[in-house]
């Protein structure tokens, strides 16, 4: 990494470990995740359901439900401040203002008994020095920014369609011009046509406000379209991370390859999909050594007995595989 990039660093997560304790058993949700996001950059966090993607985002924002969740180890540095050791009162000033989050399910992310205008204005009122009237005006502006007529600010969430609710959620997240946006599967709950609109809107807004984005998704199409860097996460660990073009062109980890392989190709007229065989390991009882080894066709004894470190392939492309995807 060059010197100039270092100064552009907005958030850096180091060795993050998050565990959930339920009824005596410990769920290892996130196991030593490290990554950086620079200013204006979009990092895609890709992985299956339950891989720990949302947990990472919630840990950054400090809104993990405690109990049962507990950050066991690691640091999250945001513009030089360690968020994990920040007192709750200071953290509240970061939340919604400097870091904000778009939630996965727009149907449930809005409070049903407040008008959408009030819900957007609430974030503004909390963080900006504004009167109530000014914050309401700003809320109307935000609604119009995401393509909803401003006069609908007096309406309640149940009067909006799913796509519009997601726009409201995005307007709420962007209301205070955050430096970092955590987008947790922002389009999963939407129709494909609406997806495209929402993504385009997010790309435009990102350009306008120079916001960094952590884009959580399991849709590789979205990654290709939106992301500068990609981290592939499996069982709470990053198995491969690098620039988007490196990951797409030179996917190395068997799991990453499997993800791409499971996409249907329109060119080759194949009749069957190629899923990754097997199941995600039980997070209360993770395999020793490489966590993907039970499903990996290249794995041998050496993979199963020791923890596998990230291996540098150059240009910031790291992979957690001692065989570099079966090539060695």
């Amino acid at each position, binding site marked *: 990494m060059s010197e100039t990039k270092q100064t552009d660093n907005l958030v850096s997560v180091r060795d993050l470990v998050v565990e959930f304790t339920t009824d005596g058993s410990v769920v290892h949700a996130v196991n030593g995740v490290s990554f950086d996001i620079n200013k204006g950059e979009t990092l895609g966090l890709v992985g299956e359901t339950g891989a720990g993607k949302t947990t990472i985002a919630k840990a950054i924002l400090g809104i993990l439900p405690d109990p049962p969740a507990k950050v066991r180890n690691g640091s999250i540095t945001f513009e030089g401040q360690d968020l994990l050791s920040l007192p709750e009162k200071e953290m509240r000033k970061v*939340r919604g203002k400097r870091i*904000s989050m778009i939630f996965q399910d727009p149907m449930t992310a809005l409070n049903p008994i407040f008008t959408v205008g009030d819900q957007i204005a609430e974030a503004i009122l909390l963080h900006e020095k504004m009167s109530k009237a000014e914050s309401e005006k700003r809320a109307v502006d935000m609604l119009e920014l995401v393509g909803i007529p401003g006069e609908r600010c007096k309406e309640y969430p149940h*009067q909006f369609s799913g796509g519009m609710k997601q726009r409201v959620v995005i307007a709420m997240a962007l209301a205070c011009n955050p430096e970092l946006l955590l987008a947790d599967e922002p389009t999963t709950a939407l129709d494909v046509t609406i997806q495209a609109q929402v993504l385009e809107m997010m790309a435009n807004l990102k350009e306008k406000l120079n916001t960094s984005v952590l884009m959580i998704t399991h849709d590789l199409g979205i990654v290709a379209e939106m992301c500068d860097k990609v981290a592939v996460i499996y069982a709470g660990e990053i198995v491969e991370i690098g620039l988007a073009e490196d990951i797409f062109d030179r996917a190395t980890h068997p799991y990453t390859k499997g993800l791409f392989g499971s996409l249907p190709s329109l060119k080759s007229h194949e009749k069957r999909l190629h899923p990754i065989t097997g199941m995600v390991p039980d997070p209360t009882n993770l395999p020793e050594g490489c966590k993907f080894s039970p499903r990996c066709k290249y794995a041998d004894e050496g993979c199963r007995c020791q923890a596998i470190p990230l291996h540098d392939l150059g240009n910031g492309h790291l992979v957690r595989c001692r065989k570099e995807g079966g090539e060695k």
Partner: protein
Amino acid sequence: MSRYIVKRLLMMIPVILGVTWFVFTLMYFTPGDPAQIILGADATEQEIQEKREELGLNGSYLERFGTYLKQVFVDGDLGTSYIYNNSIADEIAARFPNTFKIAAISVVLAVIIGLPLGVMAAVNQNTWKDNGSMFLALFGVSMPSFWFALMMVIVLSLHLKLLPATGLDSWKCYIMPCVSIAIGGAAGIARQTRSSMLEVIRQDYITTARAKGQTEFLVTYKHALRNALIPIITQVGNMLGIQLGGAIVAESIFSVPGLGTYMVSAIKNRDYPVVQGSVLVVAICFGLVMLLVDIVFAFADPRIRSQYQKKKKVAKEA
């Protein structure tokens, strides 16, 4: 909304007629002769027959029911008490304020105690705060109100001589009846609040509110509690409705001249018109409270509000 209220008020008419018929029939079949009770054990057969004639007890079932309906709904007269020979409407008008005051104070007290207790339990689920307050609540709903009433009389009136044990002469007299009623109500509200809050605080929009940087206090009381209110409002409405019918136990123990004591003594004395009249008043009160509950729902939840508005729009178009 006003159209809805009028509709609900009209719907109360068949309910009130039904209640009138039901109570009349029940009293008709109840054994015991009012004439005998009024005149005492040593009255002659002829005296009793004359008294029965005078009270109109000798007509057929339909005749007597018809007379009663006409008297109540046409002449607007609830009748005269067999025993005290005074106007039932006047007596209820004199007693109702006492019952109303006790009901209102105990409901307010129950909400003030029960609501924060339930919220605290839910927010601190599975901690000592939760277990402690839920133990208290379980105790409160399990122990009958007369037990609390008697304990308070023993301690506060008999031993400490702080509060008067009977009557309603000063504000001090309201304390024990209201508290004895409020304990059970508060316990019920606390339990309802806890379970309703537990459902709401797991919702995504609560996380959204936290993610905005909202304080935990406002997340709990503004975002969560307002969404948890519907079942709590129902519970509070039920409590108010029941208490307006007279807290029979508390009124009896503390000799409060309210609706409850009036009804109990009327039932004991076979004072048919009094029983019928007061049950009618209680039924109307309950109906009005339930209407109030539904109106409060509309204020608490915009989704319910828009249902009424939609109905109104459809009705207008038709």
